[in-house]
């Protein structure tokens, strides 16, 4: 058996992140001075971004015998993932420091999770996809349990682990059925075989159902959404910030890889399933969010509804729909980072700013932070001139363009219901008077600066959405050529 060295350049960012993560792990255990973890992590993210940009080529590159793919979609999603991980690290530092959680483990686990996401984003093969997914999931389970003396966090971690493992099982079972049917684990090859037609349609659809159930778990869409609110609420806010942002990019990527790259010939079969899941998510997410008084839990339900919206884009099965989906997920990650970032930022002096009450009258205490939060809430509600509006518009366009006008009507009706609880947050911020013991927030310069950039980006991309749309369109064109 002859052995050829594979081309490493497409996977250079992954290799770099892996090396640096190991380095941080080592330096954390060898040296007394833990101060290096933070700058090293930031260095890793910035350099990884540089490598990704520099090694980016317009063509699709395969390596590791077709296990790994590097295309424009992967590059763009990875860049957003670096940015969001960077934001997570910066936002959560004061929070973790105050609670004594700022240990090497946090950085290492976050970076391993990032690596898992990168592998998922670039997966071209069931095996690499699964490895990436497990790397991400295992890191996240541990992160949720980071605050080990908190019963709530431990419970959340256990729930997450059990349900996550179950979902992985579903996914694997679906994969094995498809493998049995097509004899390949490589996604493009599978698409070719399916295009030619298979004998046993029944087994194929059966496998597809399991696959989609697994994906549904990872995306957190109804009816596989049960874990989302508990984990979002139970985990320390800084970890919720992470769980709620970057992994959505990876979940979007594997959905695209599996359903569009691998199973596109089966589009009629998965379309219906996605439509049902999307509508259920919109209904459950938006209706359940109304009743929440804990803002983390409310945002968890709002995530479910956002993921439902995202699925609608993929469901339309058109190029416009995939582009809209990508636009939506990037916009969502920006909004989610900002809003959870503010929750983390306001949780100070031993106080968790978790309940809506903690935000009362923020406008009279700190008008700028209140304005940022209001921008993010209006954006999530899908109002112009914020980026959330264009994300929704793009999805609606793709739905109407593909002939699903009624789904578009259903979607906007649920976003009307959704508008209520976002408005309620704005009401709490602006209309209510603050509690007597409400703290005055002094600025932490680096965090506040990045939060401001984050919030203003949501506004600016709403006024000038074209650059992001161009980027997503380009990435999809290069990927699906």
């Amino acid at each position: 058996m002859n052995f050829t060295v594979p081309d490493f350049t497409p996977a250079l960012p992954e290799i770099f992140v892996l090396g640096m993560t190991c380095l941080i792990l080592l330096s954390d255990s060898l040296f007394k001075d833990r101060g290096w973890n933070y700058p090293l992590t930031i260095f890793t993210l910035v350099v990884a971004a540089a490598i990704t940009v520099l090694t980016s080529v317009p063509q699709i590159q395969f390596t590791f015998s077709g296990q790994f793919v590097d295309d424009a979609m992967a590059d763009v999603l990875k860049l957003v993932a670096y940015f969001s991980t960077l934001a997570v690290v910066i936002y959560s530092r004061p929070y973790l420091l105050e609670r004594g959680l700022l240990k090497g483990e946090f950085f290492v686990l976050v970076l391993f999770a990032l690596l898992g996401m990168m592998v998922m984003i670039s997966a071209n093969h069931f095996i690499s996809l699964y490895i990436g997914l497990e790397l991400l999931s295992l890191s996240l389970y541990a992160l949720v349990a980071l605050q080990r003396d908190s019963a709530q966090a431990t419970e959340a971690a256990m729930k997450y682990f059990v349900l996550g493992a179950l979902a992985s099982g579903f996914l694997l079972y679906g994969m094995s059925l498809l493998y049995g049917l097509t004899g390949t684990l490589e996604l493009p090859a599978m698409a070719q075989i399916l295009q030619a037609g298979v004998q046993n349609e029944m087994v194929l659809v059966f496998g597809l159902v399991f696959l989609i159930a697994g994906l549904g778990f990872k995306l957190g869409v109804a009816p596989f959404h049960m874990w989302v609110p508990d984990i979002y609420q139970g985990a320390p806010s800084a970890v919720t910030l992470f769980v709620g942002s970057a992994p959505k990019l990876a979940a979007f990527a594997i959905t695209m890889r599996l359903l569009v790259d691998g199973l596109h010939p089966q589009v009629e079969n998965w379309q219906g399933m996605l439509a049902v899941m999307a509508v259920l998510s919109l209904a459950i997410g938006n209706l359940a969010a109304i009743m929440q008084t804990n803002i983390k839990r409310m945002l968890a339900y709002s995530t479910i509804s956002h993921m439902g919206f995202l699925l609608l884009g993929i469901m339309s099965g058109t190029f416009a729909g995939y582009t809209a989906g990508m636009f939506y997920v990037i916009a969502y990650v920006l909004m989610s980072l900002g809003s959870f970032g503010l929750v983390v930022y306001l949780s100070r002096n031993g106080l968790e700013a978790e309940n809506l009450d903690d935000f009362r009258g923020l406008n009279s205490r700190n008008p700028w932070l209140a304005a940022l939060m209001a921008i993010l809430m209006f954006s999530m509600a899908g109002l112009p001139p914020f980026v959330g509006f264009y994300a929704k518009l793009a999805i609606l366009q793709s739905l109407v363009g593909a002939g699903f006008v009624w789904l578009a009507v259903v979607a906007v009706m649920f976003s009307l219901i959704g508008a209520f609880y976002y408005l309620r947050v704005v009401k709490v911020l602006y209309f209510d008077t603050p509690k007597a013991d409400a703290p005055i927030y002094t600025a932490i310069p680096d965090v506040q600066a990045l939060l401001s950039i984050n919030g203003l980006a949501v506004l600016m991309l709403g006024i000038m959405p074209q650059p992001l749309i161009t980027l997503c369109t380009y990435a999809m064109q290069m990927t699906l050529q």
Partner: protein
Amino acid sequence: MIEGIGLLSLAIWVPIAAGVLILITGGDKNADGQRTLALLGSVLGFLVTLPLWTGFDNASAAMQFVEVAEWVPAYNIHYRLGVDGISMLFVLLNSFTTILVVLAGWAVIKVRTGQYMAAFLIQSGLLNGVFVALDGMLFYVFFEAMLIPLYLIIGMWGGPNRVYAAIKFFLYTLLGSLLMLVSLVYLYFQSGGSFEILAWHRVPLTMVAQTLLFIAFFFAFAVKVPMWPVHTWLPDAHVEAPTGGSVVLAAITLKVGAYGFLRFILPILPDASREYAYVIIALSLIAVVYIGLVALVQSDMKKLIAYSSIAHMGFVTLGFFLFNPLGIEGGLVQMISHGFISAAMFLCVGVMYDRVHSRQIADYGGVANTMPRFAAFFMLFAMANAGLPGTSGFVGEFMVILGAVQVNFWWAFLAATTLIFGAAYTLWMYKRVVFGAIGNEHVAEMKDIDSREFVVLGLLAVCVLGMGLYPLPFTEVMHTSVENLLAHVAHSKLAY
């Protein structure tokens, strides 16, 4: 015309820029500077709209002062602005009202003054955007975005039940506009990938499509107007909003709904409009008669004026769906006139509220004894609200009634009852509040209006009388555009 940036852009962005500037200046310790800045911004915002009228070509039905720039090329969305005879006056009305609102809130708003002023200025810019946008999506962006400042205004500076009113107002209007959003996207595909409103005027549509679009657009605009039976948010919003909020709400935002009928429903869906005109006319007549009666029994002055607004707006929609020039021009004149009168009425209530802190009719009586100058102004505006000849309130109503007679005598008859009901509820309220012996010690302590209030009410009095005595400058502006619109509506879109 200034090179590079057009007048319409200035009309939108000058107030918004002023608003942002005020927000930057910080908290309440700069309140005086913020007030001055707000006044400067609103006056400047009004001045840049004046050339629109002086430079307007009355003989042309085409869009004027057009500006086009690419905005979101991916969806073919353009920054496309322009005014015709239908929309031009509303830009002026809106910019003018902003000055009044800034003056009205000058001394009354003591907390978060900067945010208050900024919200109104930004709101004013967004409203101008609604009236001048010629791209469907640009229109929608302004149409939705203007909800945000108004929501904050009602919720932050409103009365005791303000949260309920603000959320109700927001959700009600959002319900309508979200259906419109889907319709806009649908029209985009029907027209081969364009959001240009004028291009939509020529897109052929089947009757089924027109009917569905009619329902969606109707909801969006009927909620804004508001038409019976989707009017229930308005009394709540008006009662709870601060004076300035009520003024903007009544004088301008209600007009957005009616404007939408003329810009979208009539020209884009002519066949559906003719087919379902009887529905609109029936709803309008219900608004005129039934809501008129409802106004009669109100004990809260603001609520009374709110119901009277709904009745007056019923006249507007009635006029639009008569499909004759008198009806549509009458409706437009009524909109402008109602902009002046309702603003004046709310300001009058605001003047009294600032002194006694009550809106209940029963808490007043004999105000004329302590505030004679104010009572004179209030008298004029009450008469105008009742449609007295010589005031602007008469012109629009008379034109609509004349237009209705041409079509159906009984419609005209029912519409004309407003002259009775209007007089009844307005003058009865006026009598109870202003005449008679001094009702209580609060009224006895009331001071007459100061010079700032005198200026505000005086300006409005000039407008109301001017428009009532010599309405030609207003009607000649709209005439050509209305004729053009009617020619368009008469042309079926089904024949293709």
